[in-house]
């Protein structure tokens, strides 16, 4: 069970792209919390979480994303999710988080 996080600031679109790979659970999700705090301190811009490589998330992982959502909102910035796998989309949907975290277009 491991988590790999790769954050890149995309100058063109002026936002953070954070790739989250592996499994995000009670053991690993604090790593994401720290990383999201770190990058937002570095540059207060919108954050995109790319979940293409994320296989598993639990409520502590969701909690970390909700926490970041709140902190960014205070600064009028947004965090959003792209490429969630089916099982993760299911959890986002049943908790209603899809509505605030997944951009409809």
């Amino acid at each position, binding site marked *: *069970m491991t988590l790999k996080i790769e954050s890149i600031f995309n100058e063109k679109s002026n936002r953070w792209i954070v790739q989250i790979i592996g*499994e995000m*659970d*009670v*053991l690993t999700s604090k790593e994401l919390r720290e990383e999201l705090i770190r990058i937002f301190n570095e540059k207060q811009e919108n954050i995109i979480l790319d979940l293409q490589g994320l296989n*598993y998330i*639990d*409520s*502590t992982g*969701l*909690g*970390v994303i*909700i*926490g970041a*959502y*709140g902190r960014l909102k205070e600064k009028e910035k947004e965090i959003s999710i792209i490429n969630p796998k*089916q*099982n993760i989309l*299911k*959890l986002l949907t*049943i*908790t*209603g*988080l899809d509505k*605030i975290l997944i951009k409809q277009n």
Partner: protein
Amino acid sequence: MTDFLKFSIPGKPEYVGVVRLAVSSIANRAGFDIEAIEDIKVAVAEACNNAILHGISDNCCNFEVGCFLENDRLIIEIEDKGHGYNMNEYVAPDLCNPKEGGLGIFIIKTLMDEVEILSNTGEGTMIKMTKYI
């Protein structure tokens, strides 16, 4: 005929992954499809998180996971002899107003077919969840 498996697991975040793997393998054996296996895995992990984070908050002891495989259902019981809580004070999450915590039991109830919780302050907590095949 019922097959019964029981796991005694240290109350530490490090071991939730072991339970998740074991329970997935049992659910697969029981004949659930991939989506149901995933549901069971997530629900059991949430109950383990609660046992570890709220029940036995100081890593002191083990908690137990019991699995009963019946012909038409899988029943899983997660039990800790930890702090327990007053279930009357439980508030379901307000989904329009997301907060960092408070989603675990809600997720369990959504993913499983039947959920029963017994908890007594100072004595511990038992959550029993059933999924039909």
